[in-house]
C-alpha cells in the first residue's frame, strides 16, 4: 500500500476515533449521534435481519438498473449527439445547465404518473446519472485522435468495427469517469427518492428510523450506505487511474 493510502487510512481512523471520543465524553449529545463503534454494532445486527436484506435488494437493484440504463442510453446519446454537430450546438445549453435544475422537483410528478413504486425511483436514479455519461462520452469522443480514424481507413475497417475496435477503447478512460460519476448520481437519486416517498428501500428505512427517533438503526444504515459508496468509488477510482495511466499518450522523445 502506498504512503498516500496509509495516510488516508490514518486520517479516517483518526476522525473515527475523534468522533468516538466526543460521543463518549458527551461533547455530542447521544440523542443527536451515537458513537461510531455503536454504529458498527448496530449495522452488524441489522445485517442479520430479513428486512434489511429486502431493503438492500430493492435499493441496490434499483441503482443497478438505473445505472445500466443510464450508461447504455448515455453512451448511445453521446455517440449520436457527437455525430450531429447542429444537434449538439442546440443541446449544449441544456446539457451544461442540467445539474443546475433540482431534479427532485420532478419526483412528485413521477409518483403521480406511476404511483409510489420502484419505477419512479429508478427513473430518478437514471435522470441523475444519464447526463454525466453523455457529457463524458462527448468529452471522450472530442479527444479521439484524428489519426485513429485514418488508421481505421487504412485497415479498411467498417464503421461498426471502427467504433467497436478503435473509438470505444479510445474513449474508455472518459467513459469510465462518466460511469464513476453515474454510480454516485444513481446512489443519490435512488436513496434520496426512497427517503422522500417510498414504502421500501434503505432510504425509506433511514427516513423511518429518523422519524421514529431510532438513532441506532438510522446511523447503522447511514454507515452501510457510506461504506458501500466509498468502497465502490475507491475501487472505480483505482481502476480509473490504471486505465488513464495506460492510455496516456506521452510526448515523443
Amino acid at each position, binding site marked *: 500500500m502506498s504512503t498516500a493510502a496509509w495516510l488516508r487510512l490514518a486520517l479516517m481512523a483518526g476522525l473515527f476515533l475523534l468522533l468516538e471520543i466526543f460521543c463518549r465524553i458527551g461533547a455530542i449529545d447521544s440523542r443527536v449521534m451515537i458513537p461510531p463503534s455503536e454504529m458498527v454494532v448496530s449495522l452488524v445486527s441489522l445485517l442479520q435481519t430479513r428486512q434489511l436484506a429486502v431493503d438492500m435488494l430493492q435499493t441496490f437493484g434499483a441503482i443497478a438498473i438505473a445505472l445500466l440504463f443510464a450508461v447504455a442510453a448515455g453512451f448511445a446519446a453521446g455517440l449520436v449527439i457527437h455525430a450531429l454537430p447542429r444537434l449538439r450546438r442546440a443541446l449544449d445549453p441544456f446539457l451544461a445547465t442540467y445539474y443546475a435544475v433540482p431534479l427532485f422537483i420532478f419526483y412528485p410528478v413521477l409518483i403521480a404518473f406511476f404511483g409510489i413504486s420502484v419505477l419512479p425511483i429508478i427513473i430518478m436514479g437514471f435522470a441523475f446519472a444519464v447526463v454525466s455519461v453523455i457529457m463524458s462520452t462527448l468529452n471522450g469522443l472530442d479527444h479521439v485522435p484524428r*489519426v485513429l480514424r485514418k488508421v481505421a481507413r487504412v*485497415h479498411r475497417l467498417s464503421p461498426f468495427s471502427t467504433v467497436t*475496435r478503435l473509438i470505444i477503447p479510445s474513449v474508455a478512460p472518459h467513459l469510465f469517469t462518466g460511469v464513476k460519476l453515474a454510480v454516485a448520481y444513481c446512489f443519490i437519486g435512488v436513496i434520496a427518492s426512497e427517503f422522500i416517498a417510498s414504502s421500501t428501500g434503505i432510504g425509506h428505512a433511514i427516513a423511518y428510523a429518523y422519524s421514529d427517533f431510532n438513532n441506532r438503526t438510522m446511523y447503522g444504515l447511514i454507515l452501510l450506505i457510506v461504506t458501500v459508496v466509498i468502497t465502490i468509488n475507491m475501487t472505480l477510482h483505482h481502476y480509473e487511474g490504471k486505465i488513464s495511466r495506460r492510455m496516456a*499518450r506521452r510526448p*515523443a522523445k
Partner: protein
Amino acid sequence: MTVSAAAPEPHVCLSGIRQVYPATQGRAPLHALGPINLDLRQGEFFSVVGPSGCGKSTLLEIVAGLQPPTEGTATFEGRPVVGSVPEGIGVVFQEDASFPWLTVWDNAAFGVRRAGLAEAEVKRRVGHALSFMGLNDFTSAYPSQLSGGMRQRVCIARTLVMQPRLILLDEPFGALDAQTRLIMGDELLRIWRETGATVLLITHALDEAIMLSDRVGAMSFRPGRFLEVLETGWDRDRDSKIVSDPSFGAMTGRLWSHLRSESIDAINTLGQKAS
C-alpha cells in the same frame, strides 16, 4: 511539370492532380496542390520535401485514398485509387497512432488479425516484424511504457506485418530528436531493402530526404507543385554514413536554393494568418 521515369509500368501514377478546398465562411477557395504529375517506379524510395502548408501530406493522402483529389487521377499498380485505401498500401503517420489499450504485440497484430489470417501466420508475421524493429523485449509492454521512437516503431511494425507493396510515410520521425531520426532512417532503409516495397516519404527535413531517397521531389509553397525532382544516385545499400559524402552537401544546397524563397513565403503567409 511531368516527372516520369522510363520504367515499364509505374507503381504509382499521379496525373494532373489538383486539390482545391472550396470557399468557407469568409474565406476564399484554397488552391492547395497541383497540378502534380508524378510516376513512382516499382521499389524506389521517393521523398517529398517542401515548406509547411505546401500540400505534402495532402499529396500522400491522395495517393493513399484517404482523400479524393479535386482533379486528376491517382493509380496504384494500374488501378485507380478511389474512395478507399487499396490493399497493398501501408501508411505510417507522424502522430502517435499506436493503440494505447493494446500491448505492443497486439498493436502489431491488429491488421493481420482483422484480415482474418490464421493464428500461426499472425504469429510468424508479428514475431518477424517485432524482431525486425527491435521490439522483441517489449511485446507485452503498452505504448505508454515506451518512448516516442519506440512507439513509432510499433506503428511501423503494424504496417510491415501487412506486407505492403507501397509504404507511405507522413513525416514519421517529425517528433523525434535528430539522433533518433538518423537511426530510424537507417532502419527505414533496411526495411525498404528487405521488403522491396516502394516508399513515399513526406518530410520537411532536407537532409533526411536526401540521405534516404533515390529521388527527392522539392515542392513549392501553395499551391504545392514540384519545383525539381532530384536523382540522388545513391547505392541501394546506403546508410546514414552518406551524410559525410561531399555530394550530400551539394544536393542539400541545391534543394535549399529552391526551397528557401518558398519557405519564406510560407512563413510570411502562415504567420499572417496566425496573427
